[in-house]
């Protein structure tokens, strides 16, 4: 059980990266982005293209760091992939969502078009890479470390936790210390008030997509390192992402972090009693329970 909880924290921290971005978009741009899971897939596959394609062609060595399953290629690919997906998210906004906003389409129309973009992203991945499972590095998993209470954990998983922690602290500092971060929080809190205070909301929206896309990419890559890559991985993350976002109250990034960890732990612990394929259903049931008991989430106001 202790081991499942630790695995749950690893999975939950990956869900949290997606949920934080989803919650930011939901809170600031005010629509349910059904393409957020597929932005995670996009990040994972861009990194795959870098690691097995570009970086191997230009001759970056393929060695690994000690007990970890990747090396310099992934270290280079990681930030590049985050940047690429940030740009993709911003471009999707310029090409599609911004047009809908200026036409005065409601949040449901935006949500519907995001459902469309989610299929478009997935189809592009399927056309290029097909529907096979992929790995960043072929071969056996590295041996696991033995921790007290019989917990076995792979070095990769410990690293994943540190990467997530680093990104969350970075985001926290950005939102608390920089002018743009403060403006984003203000817009999430009250859009009208932000507008009359002279905040340029279109720029805020741009930054929101950039941050949301980059975090989603990071989550997707980390999942690819921990488990594997598949074109449908992002779609399978969608329900856990929404469950985490609603649990932690929409627009609240610390709530999304706690929501992500909760959902991740619940999903992993459930595998002790249920088939692992039911993980999505577990997230769904938790979400329905929250909607019945406290629809505004744990940090929401009455």
């Amino acid at each position, binding site marked *: 059980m202790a081991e499942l909880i630790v695995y749950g924290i690893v999975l939950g921290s990956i869900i949290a990266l997606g949920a934080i971005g989803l919650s930011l978009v939901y809170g600031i741009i005010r629509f349910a982005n059904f393409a957020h899971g597929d932005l995670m897939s996009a990040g994972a596959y861009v990194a795959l293209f870098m690691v097995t394609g570009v970086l191997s062609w230009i001759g970056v060595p393929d060695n690994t760091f000690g007990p970890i399953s990747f090396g310099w290629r992934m270290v280079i690919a990681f930030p590049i992939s985050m940047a690429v997906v940030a740009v993709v998210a911003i471009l999707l906004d310029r090409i599609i969502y911004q047009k809908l906003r200026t036409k005065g*389409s409601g949040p449901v129309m935006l949500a519907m*078009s995001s459902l469309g973009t989610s299929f478009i992203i997935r189809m592009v991945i399927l056309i290029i890479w097909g529907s096979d499972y992929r790995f960043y590095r072929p071969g056996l998993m590295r041996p696991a470390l033995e921790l007290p209470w019989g917990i076995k954990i792979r070095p990769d998983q410990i690293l994943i936790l540190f990467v997530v922690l680093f990104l969350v602290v970075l985001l926290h500092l950005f939102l608390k210390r920089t002018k743009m971060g403060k403006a984003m929080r203000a817009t999430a809190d009250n859009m009208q008030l932000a507008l009359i205070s002279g905040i340029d909301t279109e720029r805020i929206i741009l930054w929101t997509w950039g941050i949301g896309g980059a975090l989603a990419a990071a989550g997707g890559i980390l999942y690819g390192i921990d488990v594997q890559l598949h074109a449908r991985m992002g779609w399978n993350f969608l329900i856990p992402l929404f469950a985490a976002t609603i649990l932690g109250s929409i627009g609240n990034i610390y709530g999304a972090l706690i929501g992500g960890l909760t959902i991740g732990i619940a999903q992993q612990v459930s595998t002790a009693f249920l088939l692992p394929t039911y993980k*999505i259903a577990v997230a769904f049931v938790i979400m329905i329970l929250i909607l019945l008991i406290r629809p505004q989430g744990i940090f929401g106001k009455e």
Partner: protein
Amino acid sequence: MELGGIIAYLVSFAIMAGIYAVFCLGLNIQWGYTGLFNIGIAGFFCIGAYATAMITTPKPTGIYAHYVKQLFGLNLPFITGLLGAAIICGIIAFLIGFPTLKLGEDYLAIATLGIAETFRLIFNNEYWLANGPRGLMGLPQPFDGLVDAKYYNYIYLIIVVIIMVVIYLLIERAIRSPWGRVLRAVREDEVSAGMSGKNIFSFKMQSLVFGAMVMGIGGALYAHYTKSISPAVFTPLYGTFIIWVMLMAGGSGNNKGAILGAYAIWAIWIGTTFLTDFLPYTLKARAPYIRFLLIGILLEIILIYRPQGIFGEEKKVSKLID
């Protein structure tokens, strides 16, 4: 291809598009007239198909019971299968609507999406329920003794068209009644409809359940057409996404548009199979993805440039007013 082959092809096209038209009509009640955002149509598709399969087939006995597991099999006629599918989908819709319809529109969307994925997982993994990933086979087809099996599709086309027209007339009648006008009022302005003393939650629930029942019938029609079903069919792509594109293309809030959209988009979908021939050998297996990519792009174009669809909504709400 000689003429007979072409006609047989057209008949099977018209049956499938007609079944999709039933789904579009169901979605039109929910989205077109009430503004309910259901993105789990595949769930009702799946539940409707499995419901009729278990109602109309006998429970396997003897040696078959080792190979085909099925919770129950009632061996009842086709029409009870349709009704059973509608009733079970209505009950599921009620259970989803209960926690979500008092909240914002997005919550219903996420919950319906969740129910669709959950039911697909259940049917895929629980062998005792409906034979797991292998699914159920041997569904009966109504009036199948009348003609040679070769020509059976003509009869099924007539059945599908009759059911589609009956549902169409029923919705047209309902939507032009005071009940239908309240649905539109709820869609346009919930607050003012509520201030006029209408119970918003109750009307949304009725619309959700009514639409889901129609979708259940669609699922049942599909199951009796293909005679065998498995969970792999009810994917978000074929079960939900393409139906949304059909309704948005035809014109939400217009039942003729819903039917036209189903036929038009299904024609595009079937018509683009020729794309496969032009692709290099290595890409042939991925042709369906390219076709779905085009359908996805088509949805974005519709949403941005013609959100009212081909027909747009009919403004006439009563035969007493011009």
